[in-house]
Each structure stands twice: as structure tokens, then as C-alpha cells.
């Protein structure tokens, strides 16, 4: 068992476990915390895949930004209700069945597909290559992304403005 394999298995267990916890915990606030753990696990996986930049971005944006937002949203909405909202749903059985079947089908496809087992050697580090591509080939997409973020910012402000 090499280090990379062991790392992968650890991170996989953490990720899957925390994902299960996210969807199964009754307390919403706890769910959010478990989500934070899951996102961190994902960042770790990115590291094993030599995507350091993405791991950093994941931690910054996801585990940092998204979790914060969700926590605030929960605080705002639950506070005024002043009670814990139960999380049980009436579709658990059907949903579980559906998810399980989908998983089975996906696994069947994946295991039958012929995919490479070996990683190709890295010529440059990925961050360098990413930066280069971002500013040359996918420069337009980058600009559009900026526009998108601006639009969503304006939209969010508009939606959440105080009632006049």
C-alpha cells in the first residue's frame, strides 16, 4: 500500500462519510458543518491529483465562502421561526431507491469502461499550465465569468434588499 493509495482511501472515507452525514443529519446546522468537512476532503483529493491551485481555490471559496453564506442564511431564517424544523421527509424510501439504482447503473458503466490506470508524467506544474491557458486560450471565458459574477452580485443584492 503506497502512500498515495492510503491517502486516497482516507480521503475517500472522510468524504463519503461526511456526505452521508450531510444528508442524514436532522439538525441543519450540523449538516452545514459536515458539508464543510466534505468540501475539505475534496480539497485533499485535488491535492492527490496534483491540482494544488484548485485545492486552494476549493478551500477558499467553498469551505470558506459558501459555508459562511449558508450559515448566515440558516441563522436568518431559523431565528425568526424560533423552533427547530424537522428534517424528515416523506420521500426517503423512493429517494433512496432511486439513488441506489442510479449508483448501481453508474458503477456498471464505470467498471466496464476501459480507462487508463496510469497517470501521465507531469511536464509542468498544473498551476502554471492553468494560468497560461486561462489567459490565452480561455481568456474570453474568464471575462465572461467576471460578468457572470457581477450579474449574480447585483441579483443577490436586489433580491435580498430590505423591504421598503
Amino acid at each position, binding site marked *: 500500500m503506497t502512500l498515495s*493509495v492510503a491517502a486516497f482511501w482516507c480521503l475517500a472515507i472522510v468524504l463519503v462519510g461526511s456526505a452521508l452525514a450531510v444528508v442524514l443529519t436532522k439538525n441543519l446546522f450540523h449538516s452545514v458543518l459536515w458539508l464543510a468537512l466534505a468540501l475539505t476532503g475534496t480539497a485533499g*483529493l485535488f491535492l492527490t491529483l496534483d491540482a494544488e491551485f484548485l485545492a486552494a*481555490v476549493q478551500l477558499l*471559496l467553498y469551505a470558506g465562502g459558501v459555508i459562511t453564506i449558508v450559515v448566515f442564511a440558516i441563522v436568518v*431564517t431559523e431565528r425568526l421561526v424560533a423552533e427547530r424544523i424537522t428534517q424528515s421527509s416523506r420521500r426517503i424510501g423512493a429517494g433512496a431507491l432511486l439513488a441506489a439504482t442510479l449508483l448501481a447503473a453508474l458503477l456498471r458503466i464505470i467498471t466496464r469502461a476501459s480507462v487508463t490506470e496510469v497517470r501521465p508524467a507531469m511536464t509542468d506544474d498544473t498551476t502554471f499550465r492553468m494560468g497560461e491557458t486561462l489567459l490565452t486560450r480561455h481568456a474570453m471565458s474568464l471575462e465572461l465569468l467576471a460578468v457572470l459574477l457581477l450579474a*449574480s452580485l447585483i441579483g443577490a443584492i436586489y433580491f435580498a434588499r430590505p423591504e421598503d
Partner: protein
Amino acid sequence: MGLQGYLVLAAVVFCIGLFGVITRRNTVGILLGIELMLNAVNINLVAFSRFHGEIAGMVFTLFTISVTVAEVALGLALVILLFRTRRTILADHIDWLKG
């Protein structure tokens, strides 16, 4: 660890996220499930990118992360708005577009 491992992992997380989306009653809880699904997608993208030597996959992942953040922001704004006007955040109560 080969590509298949990463793909299997991503598939598992995706299905868990889907389960969460379908079964959670709280709207915010649904959003959490969506987060999981998007994460799984990102893992897939990065894995493919690494194992095929194409950097475009990782660039795309960057984009999806950014879009997801924007989407969460807006989604939560909507939830807050919904809460303010209709005083509920339970997905089952939001059925005014019923046919």
C-alpha cells in the same frame, strides 16, 4: 489510485447528493445536496484532466466552482426572500405553481 477509483468515488458522492436533494424538507438542505453533487462533478473533471493530460478540465473546474458560488449566493437570496414573503422555508409548502 487509478482513474476508476476517482470516478467511483465521484459517483457515490453524486448519488448521495441526489438523495439529499430529493429527501430534504428544508430548502437550505436542498441547496446543501446540490453542493455535494457539484463537488462530485468537480472531482470527475479534475480526475479526467489529470489522467488525460488535458489542462482544460481543471480550467473548467475553476469555472464551475465560481459559478457554483454565484449560484449559492443567489439561491440563498431567494430563500431569504421566500421566507420573508411567505414565512416558510419548507419545500413542500412552496407549491403555488401547482397545475
